């Protein structure tokens, strides 16, 4: 097991290193610069800016310097979006906002999606199953910005009577700010999870051991949740791993619609603004997080099914 971890960590470091170098080079290859605006600064000012932030050096020297600073835990400062502010403090401030909404969204997605999936599988072909199928198809085919916009119009000012929630996200307003964003962000994963659970569950329910359990006279609830679900969870976990990383790091669309000061939206804006250190910082952070979540998923496989051997046969 420890050998397995050493290998995973080694691979992770190499991946992060490659992601760092690649992003750095690609980012510099894109035309534009952080200093441009409708009113360009004078040549002298541009030169002073480049010198101040080290952009006057060749790209490979800049990369070396960046990697050196990275080892010391220095992610640099924002060049444009929050001029001169340390990238680490920006991420430290924005990630928790995204993470909180993402975590709440996924929580409800799983807590509702998995039982619904089980229910649909159990009531296969019945009316309940059909209703659930309609809801899930809707959720999967509707992009999150549609869900978000519809909710916004319906519950945040479209009709005065229904104005229950604020249109601008404000943590000071407490739970009311979270309802709409979390619902829109979690709707798709909920539907997806429910469908995954349903089909995996149907598979499990046809297995011999379930028939044995039935023959033994076990109760339905026990058969489903104790025996069948465990087997059915593997595909769900596989889906949820990367989804956790993406959702916690911020749903760009939902953050835009509800004006949430989260990392997802910021990441996209940093690219548009050519704010190099912010692009690098958020990319490295995201990459690390996704790699971490993949490790967690592997561990969860083992929990769900002890027969899985992590050390053999790669992934």
């Amino acid at each position, binding site marked *: 097991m420890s050998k397995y971890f050493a290998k995973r960590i080694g691979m992770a470091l190499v991946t992060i290193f490659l992601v760092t170098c690649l992003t750095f080079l690609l980012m510099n290859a*894109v*035309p*534009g610069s952080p200093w*441009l*605006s*409708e*009113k360009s*600064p*004078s*040549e*002298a*000012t541009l030169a*002073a800016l480049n010198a*101040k932030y080290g952009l006057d050096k060749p790209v490979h020297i800049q990369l070396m310097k960046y990697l050196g600073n990275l080892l010391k835990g220095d992610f640099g400062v924002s060049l*444009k*979006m*929050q*001029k*001169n502010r*340390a990238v680490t*403090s*920006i991420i430290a*401030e924005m990630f928790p906002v995204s993470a*909180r909404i993402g*975590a*709440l969204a*996924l*929580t409800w997605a*799983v*807590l509702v999606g*998995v039982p619904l999936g089980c229910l649909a599988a159990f009531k296969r072909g019945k009316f309940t199953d059909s209703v659930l199928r309609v809801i899930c198809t809707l959720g999967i085919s509707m992009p999150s910005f549609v869900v978000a916009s519809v909710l*916004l119009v319906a519950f*945040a*000012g479209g009709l005065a009577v229904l*104005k229950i929630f*604020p*249109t*601008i*996200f*404000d943590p*000071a*307003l*407490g739970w009311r*700010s*979270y309802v709409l964003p979390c619902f829109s962000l979690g709707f798709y994963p909920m539907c997806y999870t429910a469908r995954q659970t349903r089909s995996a569950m149907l598979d499990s329910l046809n297995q011999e051991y379930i028939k044995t359990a039935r023959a033994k006279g076990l109760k339905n609830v026990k058969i489903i949740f*104790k025996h069948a679900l465990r087997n059915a*969870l593997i595909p*769900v976990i596989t889906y949820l791993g990367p989804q*956790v990383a993406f959702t916690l790091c911020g749903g760009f669309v939902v953050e*835009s*619609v*509800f*004006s949430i*000061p989260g990392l997802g939206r910021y990441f996209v*804006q940093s690219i548009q*603004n*050519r704010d190099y250190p912010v692009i690098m910082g958020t990319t490295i952070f995201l990459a690390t997080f996704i790699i971490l979540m993949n490790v*967690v998923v592997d561990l*969860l496989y083992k929990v*769900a099914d002890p027969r899985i051997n992590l050390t053999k046969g790669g992934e």
Partner: protein
Amino acid sequence: MRKTKKVLSLALASAMALSLAACGGGNAGDTTTAAPAETTTAAAAETESAAEESEAPAESEDGFNLAVCLASEPQSIDPALNSAVDGAIMINHLFEGLTKWVDDGKGNAILAPGQAESFEKAENEDGTVTYNFKLRDGIKWSDGKDVTAADFEYSWKRLANPDTAADYCYMIDMVKGYAEVADGSADPDTLAVKAIDDKTLEVVLTYDCPYFEEIVAFPATFPVRQDMTEGNDEWTYDVATYVGNGPYKMKEWSHNAYIEVEKNENYYDYANLGPDTIRFTLLDDENAMLAAYKSGELDFIENLPMDELPNYLASGELDISDYLGTYYVCFNTEDEVFKDPKIRKAFSLVIDRNYIVDNVSQAGEVPATGFVPAGVNDAAGPGHDDFRTVGGEYYSVDEADYEANCEEARALLAEAGYPGGEGFPTVEYLYNTADNHKKIGEALQNMWQEQLGVTVTLNNQDWNVFLENRKQGHYQIARNGWIADYNDPCTFLDMWYTDGGNNDAQYSNPDYDAQIDAAKATSVAEERMKAFHAAEDILIKDDNVLAPIYFYTQPNMLADDISGMYYTPLGYFFFGYTSRN
């Protein structure tokens, strides 16, 4: 037992979520409570009224809290480093220069004494001009320390210092010694700004700059504290170090959400200020701004989705304010096709500016008849005929004359060797990816093709790529826009100087440069303006470097129950003396 454990492990993230979510809480004050009406006019603001208004009852929780939205997170609210209008509006509330903008009673901002109660101006024998500013008594920083002339001296030298790398350093390029300091050949200390004593600031200008009193009301020239800024690049991000001398002071900055400012009890006109707090909500989506305004969460917005503009304009909810800026098309004068002024003129003449204003942009813009927009002062100064009125129209924008303009354009194109557009190469119009620019681009494409018989393709690029290409001259025709920094034609005309930093047209004409030089060399207002008019004649009438389309306006919506807001056509709104009825 084991079963529950397994099921729970599935929702690993869920468990984490609950602990994270628990950190919410807190209650926000209701923003809709009415405050005792405190109507404040500029006159009242000027006289430091000793008369005490009965203090608003107890806590500001029930006070007058204004919520406005200008734009998203400002890039910098360091007065020297800021280069955006939204940042300037916030800085105007948090700092104050030697002069300041006050309400003329009709919602228009006029200049008045700010931190300096008076100044003397003397012309020296060598043509330089010395200003002596006498600072007001009782001016303090938000932490209670006195504002001194030395603070201004420090801040101006900091602005000019190339190490500061300020976009707007050139705003004080009329100060003696600036050129040498800016190019690094002289120490910033040689800049001719000097604190004679705590209350007297002496500034020497190389010439009698007619808009200097406006410059000292420009955010870049506002004082900052040496002990807060020096060696601390992040001073603007901490409420403790972000010390200002303006009517409001920073209370809280929740990044990408809002900046909340509160009345500065150390400000000399504290008693007359309106809102207890002003919240600058930071949003980047125009639909979100409008939704929040409609739902009452915001009292003021200045950006609306383009599609909604006509409706709100028609219903009278939307106000249109003047804005000193021009939306135009610039031609690359080094391009094979567009190096011919006749072709440029033909392309300019067939633009139906009325159509674009009435049917495309639809925010009450004014069809442009020249490059310097209406509202820019001429020699006679504010309140008299403006530069545009004196300079006249370079072409008619009367709808009845459109056909004649097109006739002339076709004749010009024929003269240039392309009768009826025959043999004219396919040319490209470049714009940055945005709905409004796209719609205008499509309208232009249509006019050029219909009226001249030429083929124009449209190309859009990401903002940053677009700026780079336009700056480098990698285009044929490009959209462009320019907003005034100060109310003077110089801000529009000196940019077309050969090799100027914003000379996107790559334009170079010695006659033009000579007129700009002449304008900058003289202190006589009439001569100066004559040279600027001559320069604009060359730029638009003779060379047709640009095709001006419309003069910008500033749409804005203010809640019905708020009054007392005022505005400068430079785009600055002032909220410090508003009241809720």
